[in-house]
């Protein structure tokens, strides 16, 4: 598997660390009910198909990335910088 980092270009999977589903970007606001925290930390759609998840370019530019990819075919259809996305 190879991921195309928006900064570094196409790189081997070994350079990246996988964190988990994109859900981690949607942190509940302060005072949110416990069920929201449970959902944020634990519950996952866990789709067999196209998902968006968080990867870290650990051995490259050290950027967090949102990767759109298919969990069945391993096809990668998009890689974005989390930093750019927040702007």
């Amino acid at each position: 598997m190879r991921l195309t980092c928006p900064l570094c270009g196409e790189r081997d999977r070994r350079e990246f660390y996988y964190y988990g589903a994109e859900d981690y970007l949607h942190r509940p606001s302060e005072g949110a009910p416990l069920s929201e925290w449970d959902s944020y930390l634990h519950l996952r759609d866990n789709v067999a198909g196209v998902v968006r998840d968080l990867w870290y370019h650990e051995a490259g530019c050290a950027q967090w990335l949102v990767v759109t990819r298919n969990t069945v075919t391993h096809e990668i259809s998009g890689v974005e910088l989390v930093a750019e996305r927040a702007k």
Partner: protein
Amino acid sequence: MPDLIAKSALEGRSLALGGVTLAEVDPGPITSIALYPGGTKTAAKGLRTLGLAMPGPNSFIEKKGARIVWTGREQAFLIGVAPPAIEGAALTDQSDGWAVLALSGVAAVEVLARLVPVDLRLAACPVGTALRTQVNHMNAVILRTGDYGFEILVFRSMARTAWHEIENAMHMVQARAGTKI
């Protein structure tokens, strides 16, 4: 303050095998420049005094012994000169944190091909390219300094491991060159 003696990680050693030379080089001062939010313009102004600018991704720029290397988003290493006054960025002295190895020779690219998971052939990696990647399992910054030359920055604590890995690869490439297939 006692008088400290500056020592390089590998005592400036060098090795030639099969037309490839590996040598430790002294890069001079290394300063990390990390832009603050909105600091792009003022930092550019500071760098202009050296005739330099923040480099684009995967590249480095050289001018009169000063080199500026892209090392990440809104971040670069200024190498070889003391940093000028720069507003709008965090400056951190990194000089003693790195060991720099120069690898040169026609087969240098074949040596690195055994260790680095990125295509380093000239067409894919022209002179002036700077890559953050790995040398085997070690994080490294690799600079394409010439058609047949590279410089490799690794954490100083891993200098001997990097040397060992590259030396092994040089032996293998040399052995391969002597084999008729």
